[in-house]
């Protein structure tokens, strides 16, 4: 079993699932069912959060081996129920379990209709997210990865905004099309390598030629999920139409599945192809950094602006991952965690004022720092974290990525840094329009400052963002050995960067001049 003596990962999967079934079937009138559903969901997500912390506390940071492993040959001869985590998965599970109670609390009042179904969808989502990060079997991973589409489709479609149906279709079909090719690649891999066990596959050397195709098939899936330019167009629609908590989960965790996929599959399983197709990843990422930042600059809808900023931030993740060095990969991981927190918080900030004025139009706001000082302070903090101000988590991640990118390619670092400047531009411009200026609209002036529930949503995220910015070692430590083993695995394919220090030749002393003297 594992060090704890009981299957803690299965338990973490089961708790939300059981809670979801319970909230769907509790009897009573509508009012009572809604209240029960909220309480049950909060309780279940808090229990999972506690279990997650336990996981972290008992985690052994000195080994790259997968921990808390459990295996049950439930689906022999095809695949098995095999779970286990390394440091990278551990941190992403922390992120998921940390954000879930916040999502439930964020929906406490704003969701009034069909509450039990809503809570069940979120709880199911939590099970599937943890499952994705904990799965140790290729097909188990695929099932969790794909299954997440169903609850998210329902969340956007039922509780979303005006164009929710279009957005839900687009989200579902886009991500499905990306993923199905990955399934064919997985089938081929399982046949060729004769196993579906992810750790074994991570050490299996596929022929370089096959790697290219496999890489592209996986890339189709993860690039859509990430999302990378030019297949990012589902994201702004999905974000704008999803309810606040849906956006939080989408930006906070679901986008990280793409990055996780690159780390878990693309890099270790196809190192040669990763090096070979590095230009593709870098090219798309560079376009994304500049292009989506510029698009974000002209948005009039707050959620859309943050959605585009997500695409730009995710491009930093891909740049870091494919830099083939420690700074790049660790930076990418921190960007993933940091973006998970910061974009989630920003969506919550939008949700706070949306709940009051029911519009996401930036121009409808202005001067909020006068009547909502606490809100303005927290919003400023998260804006700064998104920009990458030193002292916040954003800085740590982006700085590491830039260092890594510079080692890989100097132009890459140049373009990426430009993206940071543009990032500062659109975020500060957003903040100026919302929080500063004259408080001249009567309905805006009438808005109340943060309630204590809303404080409870934002304050913990702010604390963690600050913690990650000041002492990132707490978060890097569990991941370090895993990153080392990944680096050892991909080292053989790592391309030469253009920014390496090379020994110069001593300049030839002009002989004639010597003789003259």
């Amino acid at each position, binding site marked *: 079993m594992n060090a704890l003596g009981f299957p803690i990962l299965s338990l973490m999967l089961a708790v939300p699932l059981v809670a979801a079934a319970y909230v769907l079937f509790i009897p009573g009138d509508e009012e009572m069912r809604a209240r029960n559903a909220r309480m049950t969901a909060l309780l279940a997500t808090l229990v999972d959060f506690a279990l997650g912390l336990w996981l972290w506390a008992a985690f052994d940071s000195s080994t790259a081996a997968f921990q808390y492993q459990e295996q049950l040959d439930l689906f*022999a001869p095809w695949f098995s129920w095999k779970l286990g985590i390394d440091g990278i998965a551990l941190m992403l599970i922390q992120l998921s379990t940390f954000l879930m109670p916040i999502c439930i609390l964020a929906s406490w009042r704003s969701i009034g209709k069909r509450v039990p179904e809503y809570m069940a969808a979120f709880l199911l989502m939590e099970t599937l997210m943890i499952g994705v990060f904990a799965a140790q079997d290729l097909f188990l991973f695929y099932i969790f990865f794909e299954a997440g589409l169903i609850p998210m489709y329902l969340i956007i479609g039922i509780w979303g905004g005006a164009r929710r149906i279009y957005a839900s279709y687009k989200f579902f*079909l886009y991500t499905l099309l990306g993923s199905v090719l990955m399934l*064919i690649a997985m089938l081929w891999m399982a046949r060729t390598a004769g196993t579906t066990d992810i750790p074994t596959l991570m050490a299996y050397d596929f022929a370089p030629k096959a790697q290219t195709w496999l890489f592209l098939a996986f890339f189709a899936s993860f690039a859509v999920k990430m999302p990378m330019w030019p297949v990012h167009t589902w994201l702004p629609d999905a974000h704008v139409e999803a309810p606040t908590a849906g956006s939080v989960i989408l930006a906070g965790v679901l986008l990280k599945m793409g990055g996780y996929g690159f780390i878990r599959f693309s890099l270790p399983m196809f190192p040669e192809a990763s090096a070979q197709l590095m230009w593709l990843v870098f090219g798309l990422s560079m376009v994304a950094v500049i292009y989506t930042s510029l698009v974000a600059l002209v948005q009039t809808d707050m959620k859309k602006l943050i959605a585009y900023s997500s695409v730009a931030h995710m491009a930093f993740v891909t740049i870091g991952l494919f830099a083939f060095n420690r700074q790049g990969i660790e930076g990418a991981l921190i960007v993933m965690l940091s973006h998970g927190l910061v974009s989630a918080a920003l969506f919550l900030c939008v949700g706070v004022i949306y709940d009051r004025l029911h519009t996401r139009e930036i121009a409808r706001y202005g001067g909020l720092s006068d009547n909502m000082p606490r809100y303005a302070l927290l919003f400023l903090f998260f804006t700064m974290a998104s920009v990458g101000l030193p002292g916040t988590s954003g800085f740590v991640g982006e700085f590491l990525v830039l260092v890594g990118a510079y080692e890989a390619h100097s132009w890459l670092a140049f373009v990426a840094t430009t993206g940071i400047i543009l990032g500062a531009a659109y975020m500060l411009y957003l903040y100026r329009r919302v929080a500063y200026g004259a408080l001249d609209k009567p309905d805006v002036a009438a808005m109340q400052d943060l309630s204590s529930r809303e404080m409870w949503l934002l304050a913990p995220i702010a604390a963690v963002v600050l913690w990650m910015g000041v002492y990132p070692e707490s978060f890097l430590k569990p991941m370090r050995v895993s990153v080392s083993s990944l680096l050892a695995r991909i080292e053989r394919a790592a391309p030469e960067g253009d920014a390496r220090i090379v020994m110069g030749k001593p300049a030839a002393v002009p002989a004639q001049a010597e003789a003259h003297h």
Partner: protein
Amino acid sequence: MSPINSSLFLALPELILVAGSIAALLIGAFVGDRSLRVISWLSVGLLAAAGLSLGCASGLGYEGLYVADGFSSFLKVVIYAAAAISILMALPYLERTKAGRFEYPILLTFGAAGMSVMVSATDMLTLYVGLELQSLAAYVLAAFHRGETRSSEAGLKYFVLGALASGILLYGISLVYGFTGTTQFGQIAEALASGTSALGVMFGITFVLAGLAFKISAVPFHMWTPDVYEGAPTPVAAFFSAAPKVAAMGLLLRVTLGAFGDAAGDWRQIVIFASLASIVLGALGAIGQSNIKRLLAYSSINNVGFALIGLAAGNPEGAAAVLFYMVVYAAMTLGAFLCVLQMRDADGRAVETLASLSGLSRSRPGLAAAFAIFMFSLAGIPPLFGFWPKFLVFDAAVAAGLLPLAVIGIAASVIGAFYYLKVIKMIYFDEPAPLFAPADSRLNLGLIALTAAFVSPLGYLSITPLSAATAAAVKALF
């Protein structure tokens, strides 16, 4: 035991069904339509008895015309189960629509006997006799609402096109017979292995495949499906979409892999074309439909296309995958039709428009959830069980090196997902339409729950036993 006795003993399931049905027919003739309920349960009993008698004997009988092996037994279990569900689900419907004639369960049982003969056939003529026995019952069933134009039209259409398909099949059989000198599967295979006159046999194979493609409603012989499903009474459409498809697919496996196994290179391209065309056309055709039964008809075309991928692979994995596919598909489609049977307006009349499903999740959350499970499952979205047979056929295709087929097939599955999503959108996202009448049968609700549980993630627990069963069944073919 003398040869004739042992042969009769081999065909015990069919004998039980036929003799029992004739007895039931007599009861019906004397008692009248009051006996519908009794005869229905009696027919279910007959099917159960036939199923239980499967284990009694195995081997080749009737001088090589008929075989009872693992393959036929497996398919017969599925066919009998699907037929029994089709009989039971029709009871409240028949009683309500005043069309409650006692012939319904009897015709179904005769049809099941025909299918039973089909999957046990080892000779082209046995095949034809089984197919016709099944088809004759089916033609009458399609026109069961004799007072209704739609139903009569469905029956007539099915009959004319079915007769045409039978003609094509017979023509193919005669060509095969002419060029190989035999109608027995084993001897055809031997003749092909020794390399006799490939071109003539090739024509024969093509015609035989065309005739069988009609029965499984694979493109380009699918045109009858939407019209017949729409016109036929809903339980009959449910029956058509499940048991005969399973039987015809089994037959197709035995003919292609058994009799024509050595000409795999020749028929494979036909199967690949039919498969991809069915997937794409089934998906595209369904998009514009506004009638749920027509939509499910296109869905069955689409799903048959996926099952054919397993056949195209032509290996034991592929054949096992097809069997697995048909089991899960039968459960999904029966479940979906059971849900359709629940669609009745306040006066109890059946409604079939997609629009009437709007907002079902608020008036009948349980039914809506079941509907959603069946739709996501038919679309093959994990973690629902409909994903697994698709996984298996694609795995078989990859194992056989048919990567382009697998890639195109799976990419086309995304088109199919669109219209299943449309149904779920109606049920969950739209504003409620007028309420449906309350459920009229505990039995049907139980059947919905049962099939929904099977295609839900719980179904994954059946992977190990079902994989073993399908693998054992196809051993008889290779």
